[in-house]
């Protein structure tokens, strides 16, 4: 089972619906013990990093996700869910991330507008088994962007300069955009991930 971590944040139903549309079962999971038995975990998130971090930890999901990571359970982070993979965000100094990826999250500077809202083109720059043919147009809504350490960025988007759009490492992938709202390219990405982790 693909578990979508349900900590009350994000457009969870849309994520589940998108997996279903490409033929994959995915369930919203709030219960920590069920999360521990998941074959793969999606970490969604939208809005304020501090709010997401606090709710995520309030539901006690931190240890379950970190444990899943150490057991090699595939992870996919979406938007603020992806940002939670890092150590923290400038948006909320007092709210920790999971520290699964090296780097931090900072407010975008020198951009046309904040937030970036709309469709933009992503170019895959790094190799990852889950990212075949992931170049394409995706839907973004964010003011903060990950600034990963070397080697973590797998895809970029040009929004007043190159920004990290896809990050990851072996067994873990994070996307700044919303694949569940990105039409055919988004569904392809979710399908490719779900097939790879099956």
């Amino acid at each position, binding site marked *: 089972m693909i578990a979508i971590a349900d900590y009350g944040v994000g*457009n969870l*139903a*849309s994520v589940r*619906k*998108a997996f279903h*549309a*490409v*033929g994959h079962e995915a369930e919203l999971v709030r219960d920590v013990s069920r999360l521990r038995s998941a074959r793969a975990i999606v970490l969604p998130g*939208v*809005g*304020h990093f501090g709010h997401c971090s606090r709710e995520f930890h309030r539901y006690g999901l931190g240890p379950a996700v970190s444990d899943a990571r150490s057991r090699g359970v595939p992870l996919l982070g979406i938007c603020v869910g992806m940002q939670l993979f890092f150590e923290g965000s400038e948006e909320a100094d007092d709210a920790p991330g999971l520290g699964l990826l090296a780097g931090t999250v900072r407010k975008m500077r020198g*951009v*046309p*507008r904040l*937030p*970036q*809202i*709309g*469709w*933009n*083109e992503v170019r895959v720059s790094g190799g990852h088994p889950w990212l075949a043919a992931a170049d394409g*147009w995706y*839907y*973004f*809504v964010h003011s903060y962007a990950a600034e990963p350490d070397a080697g973590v960025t797998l895809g970029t988007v*040009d*929004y*007043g300069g190159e920004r990290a759009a896809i990050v990851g490492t072996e067994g873990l992938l994070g996307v700044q955009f919303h694949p*569940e*709202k*990105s*039409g*055919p*390219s*988004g*569904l392809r990405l979710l*399908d490719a991930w779900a097939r790879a982790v099956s």
Partner: protein
Amino acid sequence: MTVAKRVIACLDVRAGKVVKSVRFVDTKDIGDAIELARRYNEEGVDELLFLDINASHERRRTAVELASRVADELFIPFTVGGGIASADAAGEILRTGADKVAVNSAAVRDPSLLTAIAERYGSQACVLSMDVRRSGATFEVVVDGGRVPTGRDAVAWAKEGCARGAGEILLNSIDRDGTKLGFDLEMTRAIAEVVDVPVIASGGASSAEDFVTLFRQTPADAGLAASIFHYRELTIPHVKATIAAAGIRVRPTEAFVRR
């Protein structure tokens, strides 16, 4: 580089049916919201708007249910508006699968509504929908489905709306609605040049060239049309291709395949 210009389709819904209007009156049935939503999702529209234009208290429940069923068809951003008068009502809409809510008359009566929605759900989820008509050399805000003039200056209201939390403006030209005279470029410029948020121009589009003109001559981020898309007088792929051929950055359409 910035985001692509957007082409948006709008479902004006009344009593569960998609309707067409000219200058906000003379509405008639066009068709089924679910079927249209499915078609637009497959044709590559960038976003879909659902406006229950005559939402009354007793019809709200039906409208919310229909919006939810429309959301089920979509894998693109979805905005719902019509009769939303509280942050709680906005929350109910967002939980049904919408990404943003559009507020109009209720925000004019009580602008703190914008702040309440933005604080709870973020500015990106809070769209200020403005129905505007020309009034001499200026532009006037009209409420209640184009029936009640307010005497308020549209430019001033747009600025205030953004200051209070709106993250996007949907600018509906009453004079151009359903007329096929093209977007009101002057009105769009007047608003889009003074606010920092994206502006969606609505009303009057009849050709792909109208979208090109809009993006060339104003800072609008998006162009919206309704019945010309519903009737297939104009298709989304044709509009997108025409915009791209004019050298304007737009998301290319591609076939939508559901397994």
